[in-house]
């Protein structure tokens, strides 16, 4: 019972991390019809940012915020300087340019931090176990779940209840109309891109004490985010949340049954869902062909 509760909570935590990465990808695609292959890079840099900032003596949470801010600045420069010039080209060139950026950033990470994995210490004060009734669970992982959930709710409120969120959703539905209504689409795109990058950086920063950091973590997260998008439907917030939690929980439950094969489970879940529902769980605004 203790094991089951632990694995379920692990699954929720993992799922929320996957959600943070995938929702950025889905937002960027939904609004901009832009395929961001470099999304894993923000996750990767978010984690390495925490590593370096905490090595220089910053408090863990200061390091997380600082790391996210740095990644968002990088994302803004990248979007304005390079990627915004590619938007009008066919999707193949979106993939190619962001893939090129991914190779460059990963190699830069290998140059500055070496290819070896590093450990990030769990912040002091969150090291012990919490008691939840008759069960125990690591404090830090509860913090991760709490932060991710607060962010998910905040994002939902932002998208559904604010004017800017409405603009983003309108952009996902019909970009040309939004442009005709006089909204600065370029600024909307930049904002959206940086928001997505920040969410991925947050995910990377939060998992760094749990899994450590290594140069391949970005592509691994990207692969899972792709699975989440395929299962949940591109451009759908709800789809991303449900699919991410589904994948996270299944993967975590499988870890206790089939240790080394757990990495396969996310993909098996995807295959099963697609066999039962070939169009994915939810058909988001991406259903309408563009």
């Amino acid at each position: 019972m203790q094991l089951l509760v632990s694995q379920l909570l692990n699954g929720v935590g993992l799922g929320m991390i996957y959600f943070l990465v995938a929702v950025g990808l889905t937002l960027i695609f939904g609004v901009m019809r832009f395929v961001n292959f470099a999304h894993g890079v923000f996750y990767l840099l978010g984690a390495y940012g925490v590593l370096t900032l905490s090595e220089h003596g910053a408090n863990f949470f200061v390091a997380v915020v600082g790391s996210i801010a740095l990644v968002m600045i990088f994302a803004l420069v990248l979007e304005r300087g390079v990627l915004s010039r590619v938007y009008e080209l066919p999707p193949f060139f979106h993939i190619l340019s962001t893939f090129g950026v991914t190779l460059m950033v990963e190699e830069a990470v290998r140059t500055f931090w070496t290819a070896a994995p590093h450990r990030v210490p769990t912040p002091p004060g969150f090291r012990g176990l919490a008691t939840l009734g008759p069960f125990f669970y690591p404090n830090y992982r509860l913090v991760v779940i709490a932060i991710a959930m607060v962010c998910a709710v905040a994002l939902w409120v932002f998208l559904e209840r604010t004017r800017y969120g409405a603009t983003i959703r309108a952009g996902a539905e019909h970009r040309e109309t939004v442009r005709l209504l006089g909204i600065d689409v370029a600024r909307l795109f930049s904002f959206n891109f940086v928001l997505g990058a920040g969410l991925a950086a947050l995910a990377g920063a939060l998992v760094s004490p749990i899994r450590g950091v290594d140069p391949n973590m970005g592509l691994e997260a990207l692969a899972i985010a792709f699975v989440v998008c395929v299962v949940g439907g591109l451009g759908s917030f709800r789809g991303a949340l449900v699919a991410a939690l589904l994948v996270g929980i299944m993967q975590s439950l499988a870890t206790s049954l089939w240790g080394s094969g757990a990495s396969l489970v996310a993909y098996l879940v995807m295959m099963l869902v697609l066999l039962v529902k070939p169009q994915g769980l939810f058909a988001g605004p991406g259903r309408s062909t563009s």
Partner: protein
Amino acid sequence: MISQLTGRFRTVAIYILALCCLPFAMPSVPLATEIVIMTLATLSCHLLLAYGPLLSFGQGAFFGIGAYIGGLYALHVGSSPFGGAGTALLIGGAGTAIAALAVGMVALRRIAGLGGHGVGGVTFLMLTFAVAQVAYFAAYNIPQVTGGENGLLNIPRLPVGVPGLPGLPLESAGAFYLFCAVVLGLVVLLVDLFVNSTVGQAFRAIGENEQRASAIGYNVFVLRLALFVMSGAIAGIAGVLYGMFLGLVPLSAIDLTQSERIVIMTALGGTGSLLGALLGTICFVLGSDLLSKIWPHWPFALGAAIVLVVFFARGGVLGLIENLLRAVTGKPSQGRSV
């Protein structure tokens, strides 16, 4: 430009010419062999992109599956009368085609009606990316079959010939190059015949407007599935040759970077003509061979090169050469859109 040189079979003719020159033009015969093998892999991605029009990030998975099938065949059946390099290629290609059929059924059904240029193409990319990961994790997790992290070792290089007669040995670098070159030449000939056939024309229609093609009565799903299976089989054949070439199948033959390499070579070459696959592969294999000797962090330059291709050479190296020829001869474009 190049199109006016030899008429109908110009692409095949240029391929054969290039294959004759390659071992002498390259620093070594094994490097030329590697180029020939990787050109096959690139061709598999190129076909899907040019005619699907779908970008697959999973061709490395089929390459690896082919390599493992070929390797296991050579290890376990190789010494029997049926053991030959040709049979290994057939079995590897057929096995990979079955794997591609299974993947294609799911992936292409998921994107049915979504458009190759839009959401459908993106979802396909994501799906095939996931397939590449599955193949890698699967190979890693069944070391009894694949050798896991150590790879599949001591694969004999089978002779080629007819069952019953003594086969021609392929141990020497030159003989093996010749064998690979013949395989590539045959595949290019078949692919060229295919893309210029009536069925091949149907893919042009799909590429231009999927909904219109399907309204005319083309079964887009079935056509794409056939293309996907064919390109999977080609990647598998490349994998079989790769295993024979190295004498082992490393785990890296099936990992994500293998798929990445194939996509990079496809993009570097350009998709305007089948020649793009050869050009892209030469640039990548030769470039990485030279650069990796002088700069350990050469993938950085590779990433930069890809970004530069997007900004300045969207037709790939092939497009650059065509532009150059056009500038030299002063003739207008052939109108090949890339």
